[in-house]
């Protein structure tokens, strides 16, 4: 006989979990009393949102399922942003939430929330455990659902009396679910049609998404690209699936994609979507998206196929398996004219910035991060202009080296995710690229990095603005900077603050870092940038490097919302 709490521990152990993130409370006291003796490392976060983002960063960098345990009521509701972030990006997480005793559910009890109802839309699946005998099976099912098909977060809500109750039920050896059977092997006929289309194409493009990384299929993808000489563009989530230093790399496409990538997609005659989902940031106006091409779509999620863009050759299956079946059917091929055209586009409008200015430009900071780290770091980002510059000015060559909230676009994701990533990849240099707005959202987690000796580097591109929103206000909202000035001066009249004693930015990030036990540095001149970054990456402690960058630098290229990909706006020369 084991208690429910023991079943939870056993479930984690059987799934091979080594690290768990979370925060205790009354409704999970029984589980935590077992954690005290358990073989797992437990990371105490300072906010449940931080715990979930940590588990998420850990999962992205290791490929394993991230795990967290939180309490009922506000503990559970604090996880929603983290769960929704993971749900949008397909990240495997198992999150155990405590709940009030079964008989008290629905009574507006202390620290009670309708966790199942509230998290239904933010999770791949969720469970309310009403019978302790079902718990061993549920634990096994949760890991199965989280890590198979299109991965995603699973919540298990366990009432306190269930945690305390005893059961003789044992965990299953395998999990078979009637309503859930992801397709692994692709249809041979469709794969043959795709091989034929590749042979016939004169201007093919591989459009690669995060699914290639989730499926560990980067090697197969690279082989395919090289075999048939097909240029590769990746989404934000797919960065690192194909080496960006490769001559066939078009780099990122979409709203803030490169000129060459967007032109290639617009003018290609065969677009092969490899585990990507035709997201609106990628397609721009759908009616004018890649109109000259036949389209193929390889995806494990049948609901992703034909969702927004109609496709001629759909292939449902695990992308690694499908590519393995496809490769022998594809003949070596060359497209010299097409590659010449692409090189012309790349030379016409490369990603660049004003290298002569005395100001520190955010793009320059990213480029130096790339050089100082030897291109070998794991880059984590917050959300905003800096996130896009991190995609532009760092070249990703390996999977699981770029961690970013793509689908939900969650500010505050980066710092806790970087902590989880460092735990999962202790030998790598982890860099969180942050904006001054985003970094304030979960700054409190920095102390966790200090306590656990996780020497992350937080590089704040401080432009004293909510930069992405400010740029949209300049382009589409008469330049009226409503609520986007974070600096103490220059605010609109109805947001005016008291007369500042000086124009210093608040909060003082250097002092804030030191208050948390980390090292703080501020870079105010270009000359100090490389020495500061070098010192930060060498320091075996968490470091915050605040770079005071030019406030109103704009991000280009940009495809305005609702416009076609080829109507990119470029920097005025």
């Amino acid at each position, binding site marked *: 006989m084991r208690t429910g709490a023991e079943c939870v521990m056993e479930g984690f152990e059987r799934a091979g979990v080594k690290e768990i993130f979370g925060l205790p409370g009354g409704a999970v006291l029984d589980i935590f009393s077992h954690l005290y003796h358990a073989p797992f490392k437990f990371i105490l976060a300072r906010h449940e949102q931080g715990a979930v983002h940590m588990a998420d960063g850990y999962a992205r960098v290791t490929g394993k399922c991230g795990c967290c345990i939180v309490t009922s009521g506000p503990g559970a509701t604090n996880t929603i942003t983290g769960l929704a972030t993971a749900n949008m990006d397909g990240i495997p997480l198992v999150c155990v939430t405590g709940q009030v005793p079964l008989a008290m559910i629905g009574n507006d009890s202390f620290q009670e929330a309708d966790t199942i*109802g509230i998290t239904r*839309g933010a999770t*791949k*699946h*969720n469970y309310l455990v009403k019978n302790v005998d079902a718990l061993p099976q549920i634990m096994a099912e949760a890991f199965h659902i989280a890590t198979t098909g299109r991965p995603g977060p699973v919540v298990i809500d366990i009432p306190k009396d269930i945690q305390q109750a005893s059961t003789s039920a044992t965990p299953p050896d395998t999990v078979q679910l009637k*309503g859930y059977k992801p397709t692994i092997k692709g249809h041979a006929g469709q794969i043959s049609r795709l091989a034929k289309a590749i042979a016939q194409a004169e201007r093919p493009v591989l459009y690669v998404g995060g699914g290639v990384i989730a499926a560990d299929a980067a090697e197969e993808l690279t082989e395919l690209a090289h075999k048939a000489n097909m240029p590769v563009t990746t989404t934000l989530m797919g960065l690192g699936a194909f080496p960006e230093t490769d001559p066939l790399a078009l780099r990122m496409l979409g709203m803030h994609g490169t000129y060459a990538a967007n032109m290639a997609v617009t003018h290609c005659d065969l677009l092969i979507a490899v585990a990507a989902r035709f997201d609106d940031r990628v397609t721009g106006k759908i009616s004018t998206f890649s109109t000259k091409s036949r389209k193929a779509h390889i995806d494990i999620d049948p*609901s992703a196929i*034909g969702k927004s863009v109609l496709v001629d050759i759909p292939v449902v299956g695990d992308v690694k398996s499908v590519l393995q079946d496809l490769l022998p059917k594809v003949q070596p091929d060359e497209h010299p004219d097409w590659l010449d055209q692409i090189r012309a586009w790349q030379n016409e409008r490369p990603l660049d910035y004003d290298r002569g200015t005395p100001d520190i430009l955010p793009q320059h900071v990213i480029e130096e991060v790339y050089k100082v780290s030897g291109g070998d770091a794991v880059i984590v980002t917050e959300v905003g202009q800096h996130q896009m510059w991190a995609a532009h000015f760092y070249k990703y060559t390996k999977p699981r080296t770029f961690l970013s909230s793509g689908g939900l676009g969650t500010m505050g994701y980066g710092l806790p995710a970087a902590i989880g990533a460092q735990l999962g990849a202790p030998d790598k240099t982890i860099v969180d690229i942050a904006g001054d707005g985003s970094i304030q959202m979960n700054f409190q987690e920095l102390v966790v990095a200090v306590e656990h000796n996780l020497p992350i580097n937080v590089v704040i591109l401080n432009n004293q603005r909510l930069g992405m929103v400010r740029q949209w206000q300049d382009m589409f909202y008469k330049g009226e900077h409503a609520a986007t000035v974070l600096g103490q001066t220059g605010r609109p009249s109805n947001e005016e603050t008291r007369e500042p004693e000086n124009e210093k930015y608040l909060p003082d990030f250097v002092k804030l870092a030191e208050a948390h036990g980390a090292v703080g540095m501020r870079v105010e001149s270009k000359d100090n940038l490389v020495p500061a970054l070098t010192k930060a990456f060498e320091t075996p402690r968490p470091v915050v490097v605040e770079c005071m960058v030019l406030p109103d630098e704009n991000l280009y290229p940009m495809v305005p919302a609702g416009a076609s990909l080829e109507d990119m706006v470029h920097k005025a020369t």
Partner: protein
Amino acid sequence: MKHIITAIVQNQPGVLARVVGLISGRGFNIEKLHVEPTEDNPEVSCIVMTVPGDDRVLEQVTKQLRKQVDIIKVTDKTEKE
């Protein structure tokens, strides 16, 4: 077009809420709904709904329903008006 959507689902609390949530979450109205356990297997229920709406979007909704863990089978019959 009025769509008649039939879903075979696990007879468990929360499953109906999930089905309804996916449909209403897209702004569709469920005009008629009937749910009862199947004769051969009381652990499994059959939900029949009448949902008027755009064909393409409902096709998407049907695919998303199929993806759900507790939903075993989904069919959509469009009623010719």
